[in-house]
């Protein structure tokens, strides 16, 4: 049986693959756990900051603050795409890239020029390959993004926005709804959405609202970026875990099939040998 040693080799190879995917699944599971904790930890701060900024916000302030500036016509926009440095995470990176392409097309359709800024090797590789112009790239954001990294990612865009070189900033990242559901989404990061509830008439403000806002707006922007980075890491690990789990399951199915094929071939060989012996004995009689 020529087939049986081939099948044996394939069984060995699939077993090795399954070992690797299972390990990656376990690694992703433990990273996902830590990343989820970080997403949870940042949520109270984000929502509290949003509510304070919202209550301080008043439409008439928007002229005083570069970060609240609402140009009548948007001519140029910055798009910040967050992807992962590594693949093998199912549709994680390609979903983000697709979302970014849709956003870029939509903006182009409205006659808005765009600068594309990309975090993560996967997004960079795709847009480089397509020959798309890329304004800036970052590949140094790891599994534990820090507030400082968030600041450095957004600082350039904030500067351009404040200086009036761009009129809007969008961020494309994954929303971490749960480990299983991490849809990509685009959000308008700048100008900062007020959503002002107002009603500050009886509040004591110390110092004046403008000065508080001057401090809080950059913090708010930094925090939104940080949150997106943290959610993206959690989403990546969740996607990788699912992808590796199904790869491990598939490897198991393939192994089962191959083992069956191998056993059948082996049994066939034995049966044939017995038949030959019986046939030989019968010929001697």
């Amino acid at each position, binding site marked *: 049986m020529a087939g049986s040693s081939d099948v044996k080799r394939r069984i060995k190879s699939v077993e090795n693959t399954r070992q690797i995917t299972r390990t990656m699944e376990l690694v992703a599971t433990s990273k996902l756990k830590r990343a989820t904790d*970080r997403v949870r*930890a*940042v949520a*109270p*701060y984000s929502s*509290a*900051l949003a509510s*304070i900024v919202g*209550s*301080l916000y008043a439409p008439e302030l928007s002229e005083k603050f570069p970060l609240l500036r609402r140009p009548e016509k948007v001519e140029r926009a910055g798009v910040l795409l967050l992807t992962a440095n590594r693949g093998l995470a199912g549709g994680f990176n390609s979903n983000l890239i697709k979302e970014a392409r849709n956003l870029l097309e939509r903006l182009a359709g409205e006659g808005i020029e765009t600068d594309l800024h990309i975090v993560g090797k996967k997004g960079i590789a795709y847009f480089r390959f397509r020959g798309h112009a890329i304004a800036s790239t970052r590949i140094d954001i790891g599994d534990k993004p820090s*507030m*400082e990294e968030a*600041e450095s990612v957004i600082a350039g865009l904030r500067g351009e926005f404040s200086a009036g070189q761009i009129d809007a900033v969008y961020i494309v990242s994954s929303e971490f709804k749960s480990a299983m559901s991490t849809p990509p989404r685009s959000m308008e990061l700048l100008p900062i959405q007020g959503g002002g509830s107002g009603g*500050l008439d*009886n*509040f*004591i*403000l*110390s*110092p*004046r609202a*403008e*000065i*508080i806002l*001057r*401090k*809080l707006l950059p*913090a708010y922007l*930094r*925090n939104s970026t*940080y949150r997106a980075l943290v959610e993206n890491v959690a989403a990546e690990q969740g996607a990788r875990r699912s992808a590796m789990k199904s790869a491990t399951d598939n490897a198991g199915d393939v192994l089962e099939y191959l083992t069956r094929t191998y056993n059948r071939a082996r049994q066939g060989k034995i049966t044939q040998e017995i038949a030959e012996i019986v046939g030989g004995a019968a010929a001697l009689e």
Partner: protein
Amino acid sequence: MSELQVRVVSPDSVLYEGPVASVVAPAWDGRVGILPGHAPMIALLGSGELTIDLPGGGSEKFFVAGGVLKVEGPDLMILVEYGGAEVPEELPASADIDMASIMDAVESAD
């Protein structure tokens, strides 16, 4: 009016949450004491010691830097850029409050 619910949050954790007797926080222009029934207020924080007096006696102390606090009714929300039990060797850049620019802004308006 005897209840004051406090929530102290930093970007990576909730430092304290629960009912308190009073709070002394480092505001940008000096320490500010908050008792139950305080008028609604939003104040920028500087850096220093945040003291939380517990209802049953005793107190909790944190070192905080940067951020803002908001009192509204019985709720006191304290957002800090940095918060911890110890004074850190080096503050993160985001917690640097740059007092001079605040002072300039306050004075230029007067």
